[in-house]
């Protein structure tokens, strides 16, 4: 792919607020990632003379992905929580009701201060009478439980903070 074409794509990405762009056609594939003004390019091309024809008639596969949790995005409740580099925010992957235990009379899965293994259940989001266990993404310690037991939860709403060990 020629530099001129890459430049055009980068301008388009900036104008449309795209962070990642992947284009693939018969001749090859290019993936552009833009992060905070920096741009990285990685391309695999089928032939040395490969070039990209940007027209709808040719089968171009475009994958567009937007960054989550920038100031523009993320649910209303998110965004104002400061995290140390070794801390992970657990956000709800779905809309539903937040439960800290598997049943009303069972003990909570975790408390603040509990140590957790990777994959250990942290809580439940009930959506349409389905109990969805939310697992810890890493081994560490629960340092804060943000959501209240039994409360309705939005997509992307902060539930807990885990300190990764």
């Amino acid at each position, binding site marked *: 792919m020629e530099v001129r074409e890459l430049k055009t794509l980068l301008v388009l990405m900036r104008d*449309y*607020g*795209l962070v990642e762009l992947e284009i693939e056609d018969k001749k090859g594939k290019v993936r552009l990632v833009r992060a905070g003004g920096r741009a990285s390019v990685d391309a695999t091309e089928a032939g040395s003379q490969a070039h990209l024809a*940007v*027209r*709808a*008639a040719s089968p171009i596969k475009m994958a567009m992905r*937007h960054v*989550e949790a920038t100031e*523009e*995005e*993320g*649910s*209303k*409740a998110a965004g104002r929580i400061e995290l140390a580099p070794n801390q992970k925010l657990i956000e709800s992957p*779905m*809309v*539903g*009701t937040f439960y800290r235990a598997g049943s009303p009379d069972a003990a909570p899965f975790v408390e603040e201060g509990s140590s957790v293994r990777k994959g250990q259940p942290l809580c439940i989001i009930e*959506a*349409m009478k389905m109990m969805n266990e939310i697992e810890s993404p890493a081994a560490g310690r629960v340092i804060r439980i943000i959501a209240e037991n039994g409360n*309705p*939860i*939005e*997509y*992307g*709403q902060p539930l807990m903070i885990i300190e990764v060990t």
Partner: protein
Amino acid sequence: MFKKMLIANRGTIAIRIIRACRELGISTVAVYSTADKNALHVRMADESVCIGPPAAEDSYMNIPAILSAATTFGADAVHPGYGFLSENGDFAEACQRSGLNFVGPRARHIRLMGDKPRARRIMKRAGVPVLPGSEGTGVTELREAQADAKRLGYPVLIKAAAGGGGKGMRVARDAAELTRLFPQAQGESELSFNSRKMYLEKYLKHARHVEFQILADLHRNAIHLGERDCSIQRRHQKLIEESPCPTLTARLREKMGKAAVRAAEVVGYSNVGTVEFLLAGSGVFYFIEMNTRIQVEHGVTEMVTGVDLVKESIRMAMGERLGLKQRQVKFDGASMEFRIYAEDPERHIPSPGVVTNHHPPGGLGVRVETALYDGYRVPVQYDPLIAKLIVHAETRVEVIARAKAALREYVIDGIKTNIPLHLKILHDPDFNRGEFSTDFLTRYEPAQPDAAHHAPVSKAS
């Protein structure tokens, strides 16, 4: 009476539904994707719930997320608006199963009318004229399409059996074009509707798109609220709609209106719906399809009949009886709607961005339906329809004058819109005479090939 309505939509129609609910004393729950955090419908509703990431299939078309939001936040009814899940029979059924009242027709009517070849068969049997086209359940193989085209004579229109909104639709002028375009249309249908089933219709070059608004209750009463002429369209996407149709005689209106009501009655349809016809120059008309939801252009019918269609859709869903009989429907003056898109008017490509200044026009007979506000960022992920200007006056001539004044007054800074194109159309002599057909806008197509690179973005409605 419903207590709490979840609005499974965004943009102008979500605002429209929130307003109707307020008047009826129903509280509202807005749902939104992370890209719509700052959208007006989120701010206007009594409660709002984030249901997923920007991609529509993960948020506004995510049935489990929407049902979970409705049940978790205690809604007892769901309004689908237009686009997204509004014509999804599975969604209507899932709502009912979850104990939620779906504001729209029954799931089986959505499915029936969504299967276009089947709808054509039923209409034909009921004596509603349909365009000559593929018989039976449709075609999946090119050779079947070739045989149909040969029988119909070119040009033919290739359509998706599960289609809508111009997707999976192509005009073929000869056998070579059919061979080339059929697989294209089929591919689009597969992508958009997950269906390879297509059908052909005879393509009428100089026909008008005239549709009738239907209102039907759950007690088998149905009326029509007159027609809308939606011939001003670009690649099967409507741009300007008006009521009444400038060339329809009272006699033809009555005949077409009866056919539209019959189309609804024969299947036992309920709630709001629209029966679309093609009207040939000779006064011959053909059923094309029925849309089983509120339309984008419902406003023009509201202006000339005084009936609030969104409130009616909610009342009908609550089981209320129709308050109007056909002879009580009175038509007052003329109305036009101008769809304002965030797009470059020259090249017809989307123009998302921040609206730095929004000043909508006002005055007698001027109505603006929009979700814009100063500082709002028009997201790239969704339909570029950002506002609808609806104008009402005593006569069509006055409507055009009023529309010109209103469009000149409308300020939307920061992004490009198609307002200049609307003004061009309003100055077109043929448009002023009311003499146009669905191919009218081809005269305003850009000369450069850029626009052809962009598939139609907006939803059909």
